[in-house]
């Protein structure tokens, strides 16, 4: 029986090549696209899931304000120690500090700048990162130990054993390699290549021992809670411990939030969706793509069912019952799906490298991976359920006596159900077109928004030894061709990571005792070089008095409520000073974050680590050459790594840009699939109307009239789809835009463009086929009928 089913399925496929190709291409492309999307979703959902105790590990964040609106994902160093000692719910704690600047490591003639991370020694027992060589329970033998990942070990030592080798740093200290760890998986939020003992940070701090420094929130703290412990309760108790050790009004509202490690990637500290929104969107797109392909299949199979009526009837006449026919048609669908799977697998293999490149992930597609088959299984069940069973049921229900006469109530014509499916399909496509346009506009909005400073033709680099001779170097560089300005700051102005509560002014209200202000130490010419606008005051004077001068931003002014701020005395880190200017608000964090209060001040001892060079664009290369010449003179030991601010900016939104690109790609696939389905339906409609077209032409109908005859119904359905799609798209995109504090508006023209695009694409598909039918020779069509 099964053999017979397969035989007839394959012969039917071969006989109806065009429709088989439409079905198979549609299904295989949609399967491939959905699997690629699901692999992405899977990868996202499995971020940080590699730790055996992962469900009990929490990252600690400090929420300062009474409304928890100011959250700092770092804690002070002693919190881990006191928490572990005093709270029985805490089983273990691990602190991590990522050193912001590079350290120069030397081994024989090899010299590399590396980003070092200081970690507590229990990192390999609390987390499940794999230590290939060394003792996971005691990875550092002393404070001059170092752990490298495989990649670094190979870079320094090649194939030689790395354990026991010594790496030197600039100050002459040598670090002995005591462990080699496996490179951290790409779907881990924690990404470190080189680990140093956390205790190094405690060295030379006699005046302010690290483990009693409660005020410096500079360390990531991960707690391993005992099974059943409540993270909320632990968070509150940790705050109590903090306040007890550092009684201050500033911490009166302090609360610690324990965020599950496994949720770090997709949610913010407060549990709001971040990346999870993207995951949901991509899941939805995968579903829509499958839905469109299923609709194509169901539409084409049921439309063409009239062509199968005789066969079905004959089978019934010779003894087949409903279930025989049901299974026969399901087998046919399965054969098509099987072929589609094979093609889909080939497509995935072909496009996987490109897809990884586009998505910035390292997803692996292997047929030996159970997950892949799980995804295939799920999608196949969905497809087979949605697209295989319905046509099989329809076809097996024919009344053979009627079907042999060609009477098929409700089938073979443009019945209501099929119209509904076309409307659903085109509504999805129009929603996707609108979403593509709005996502594109938002990304453009972010990239072209006025940040409040210039980022065009400005490049930055780490200062290293330039810091010592900064002023001389600045003056020399300013004389070089192509250099329009040279300045420096303690951090990147794009992503300011330093803030303080040490800012006071006369009349500061009691309820603002925990007011926090972001701080950036700059060279006096920073506002001028970076084209920042002062809305009040004259700014820094270039005299020694500037060390007690401050510039605040508009938001700081607004929040502090200072009247006539210029000339007012404020205290910053216990030093009194004067406000000499108010700078127009500028974006020092990403566009998803509302602009916060900020203070600019001059203090070279704060580490002017980042140099900014403004060039004229055209002469950027000349400017780079000039810097490089000086670099060799002062920083010969270090690599010259510069970055244009435009690129750094794009990097900040890399994930959004990538998601946008992926969305465009998959939305295009969905739209093409819709058109493929429409093409199939129209071709079939034209086929069934061969006789009618012939008669009409014989009676004098023009080509245009015939095109209208075939097209009008379909185009009307596309029109109806607008009514469904527009409100849905508006609602969905409004929700999506809420993700951004600074966002574009949804304009009516977006809907008009999307509608026109969908209509034109559909019209080309429909009218192209209709034209072909209309131009056929009527004599031939009448004869064939």
């Amino acid at each position, binding site marked *: 029986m099964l053999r017979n089913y397969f035989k007839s399925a394959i012969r039917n496929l071969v*006989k109806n090549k065009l429709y088989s190709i439409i079905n198979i291409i549609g299904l295989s492309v949609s399967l491939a696209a959905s699997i690629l999307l699901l692999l992405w979703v899977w990868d996202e959902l499995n971020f940080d899931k590699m730790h055996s105790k992962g469900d009990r590990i929490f990252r600690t964040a400090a929420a300062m304000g009474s409304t928890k609106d100011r959250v700092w994902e770092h804690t002070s160093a002693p919190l881990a120690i006191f928490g572990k000692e005093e709270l029985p719910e805490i089983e273990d704690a691990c602190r991590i500090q990522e050193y912001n600047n590079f350290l120069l490591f030397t081994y024989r003639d090899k010299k590399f700048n590396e980003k070092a991370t200081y970690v507590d020694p229990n990192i390999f027992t609390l987390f499940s990162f794999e230590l290939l060589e060394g003792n996971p329970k005691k990875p550092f033998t002393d404070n001059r130990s170092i752990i490298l990942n495989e990649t670094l070990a190979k870079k320094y030592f090649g194939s030689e054993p790395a354990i026991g080798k010594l790496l030197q740093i600039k100050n002459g200290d040598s670090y002995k390699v005591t462990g080699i760890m496996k490179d951290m998986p790409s779907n881990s939020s924690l990404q470190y290549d080189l680990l140093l003992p956390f205790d190094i940070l405690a060295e030379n701090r006699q005046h302010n021992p690290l483990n009693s420094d409660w005020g410096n929130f500079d360390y990531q703290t991960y707690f391993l809670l005992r099974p059943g412990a409540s993270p909320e309760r632990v968070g509150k108790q940790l705050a109590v411990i903090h306040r007890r050790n550092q009684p201050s009004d500033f911490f009166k509202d302090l609360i610690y939030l324990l965020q599950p490690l496994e949720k770090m990637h997709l949610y913010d500290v407060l549990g709001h969706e971040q990346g999870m929104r993207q995951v949901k969107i991509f899941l939805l797109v995968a579903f829509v793509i499958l839905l469109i392909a299923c609709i194509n299949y169901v539409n084409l199979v049921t439309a063409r069912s009239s062509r199968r009526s005789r066969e079905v*009837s004959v089978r019934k006449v010779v*003894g087949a019952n409903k279930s025989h026919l049901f299974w026969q048609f399901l087998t046919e669908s399965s054969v098509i799906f099987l072929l589609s799977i094979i093609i889909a697998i080939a497509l995935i293999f072909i496009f996987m490298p490109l897809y990884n490149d586009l998505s910035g992930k390292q997803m692996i597609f292997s047929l030996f991976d159970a997950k892949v088959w799980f995804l295939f299984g799920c999608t196949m069940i969905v497809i087979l359920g949605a697209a295989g069973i319905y046509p099989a049921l329809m076809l097996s229900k024919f009344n053979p006596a009627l079907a042999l006469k060609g009477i098929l109530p409700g089938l073979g014509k443009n019945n209501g159900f099929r119209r509904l499916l076309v409307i659903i399909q085109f509504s999805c496509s129009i929603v996707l077109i609108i979403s593509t346009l709005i996502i594109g506009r938002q990304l453009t909005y972010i990239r072209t928004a006025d940040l409040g400073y210039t980022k065009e033709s400005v490049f930055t680099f780490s200062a290293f030894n330039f810091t010592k001779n900064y002023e001389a170097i600045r003056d020399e560089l300013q004389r070089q061709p192509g250099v329009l300005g040279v300045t420096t700051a303690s951090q990147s102005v794009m992503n300011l990571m330093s803030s303080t509560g040490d800012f006071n002014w006369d009349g500061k209200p009691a309820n603002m005792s925990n007011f926090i202000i972001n701080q950036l130490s700059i060279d006096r010419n920073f506002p001028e070089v970076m084209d920042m606008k002062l809305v009040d005051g004259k700014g820094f004077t270039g005299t020694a008095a500037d060390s007690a001068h401050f510039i605040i931003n508009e938001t700081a002014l607004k929040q502090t409520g200072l009247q006539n701020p210029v000339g007012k005395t404020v205290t910053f880190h216990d030093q009194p000073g004067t406000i000499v200017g108010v700078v127009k608000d500028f974006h020092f964090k990403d566009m998803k974050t509302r602009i916060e209060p900020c203070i600019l001040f001059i203090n070279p001892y704060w580490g002017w680590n980042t140099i900014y060079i403004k060039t004229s664009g055209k002469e950027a290369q000349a400017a780079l050459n000039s810097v490089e010449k000086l670099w060799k003179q002062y920083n010969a030991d270090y690599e010259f790594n510069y970055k244009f601010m435009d690129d750094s900016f794009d990097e900040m939104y890399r994930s959004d840009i990538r998601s946008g690109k992926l969305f465009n790609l998959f939305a295009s696939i969905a739209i093409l699939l819709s058109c493929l389905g429409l093409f199939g339906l129209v071709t079939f409609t034209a086929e069934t109307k061969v006789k009618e077209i012939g008669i009409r032409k014989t009676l004098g109908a023009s080509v245009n009239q015939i095109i209208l005859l075939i097209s009008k119904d379909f185009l009307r359905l596309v029109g109806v789809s607008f009514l469904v799609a527009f409100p849905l798209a508006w609602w969905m995109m409004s929700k999506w835009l809420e993700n951004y504090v600074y966002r574009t508006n949804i304009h009516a023209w977006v809907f008009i463009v999307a509608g026109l695009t969908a209509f034109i694409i559909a019209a080309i598909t429909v009218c192209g086929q209709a034209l072909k039918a209309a131009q056929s020779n009527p004599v031939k069509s009448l004869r064939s009928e």
Partner: protein
Amino acid sequence: MIKITELQKYYRTEEVETVALNSLSIDVQKGEFVAVMGPSGCGKSTLLNIIGLLDDLDEGSYKFNDIEVAKFNERKRSDLRKHNIGFVFQSFNLIDELTVFENVELPLIYTKVPAAERKKRVEEVLEKVQIMHRRNHFPQQLSGGQQQRVAVARAVVNNPKLILADEPTGNLDSNNGNEVMQLLTELNDQGTTIVMVTHSEHDARYSDRIIRMLDGQVVMTTVG
């Protein structure tokens, strides 16, 4: 074998109801060869479809081998059909995607006859209708006469007690038509009951009895 009493059959559209068969009663005895004749639209094919359980009747009784089958559900009808009834149509109704052998084999598949047995029986019946040499051809590769011989082979392969033939020679020239009629006669001689709808007086002469219909009713029965 067949006893139909007071059979009513209507065709309904949204606006009109047409009486296809009106208080029709017939009997067919086991081993009989009955021809049903009448002008187009008189209800011959409808009657044949009802006898073959391909169509429902609206009122009346239909007994097949003394069992009331009028109210049989789809499954029982299909069971009764596959074990007892063979069909031959004017337009052959072979499945284009299956070869001659596979078309004839089909009823045996649905009655779950084992493969070896199927092969034997199909080959026997193909020999009988003299089409064995074309066993691997597809229907479109055969002449009309050959296709009808295959259709007859398919109708008899399951050794049905009843063969229903709807204008079996309608699409054939006289030579091929005669061959098919010969085949049916031989089957009848071997004990198979045959009910044949035809327009041809010539073909009807092969039967034992001719039932003449008009407007959904039997108007005359002639014994051949």
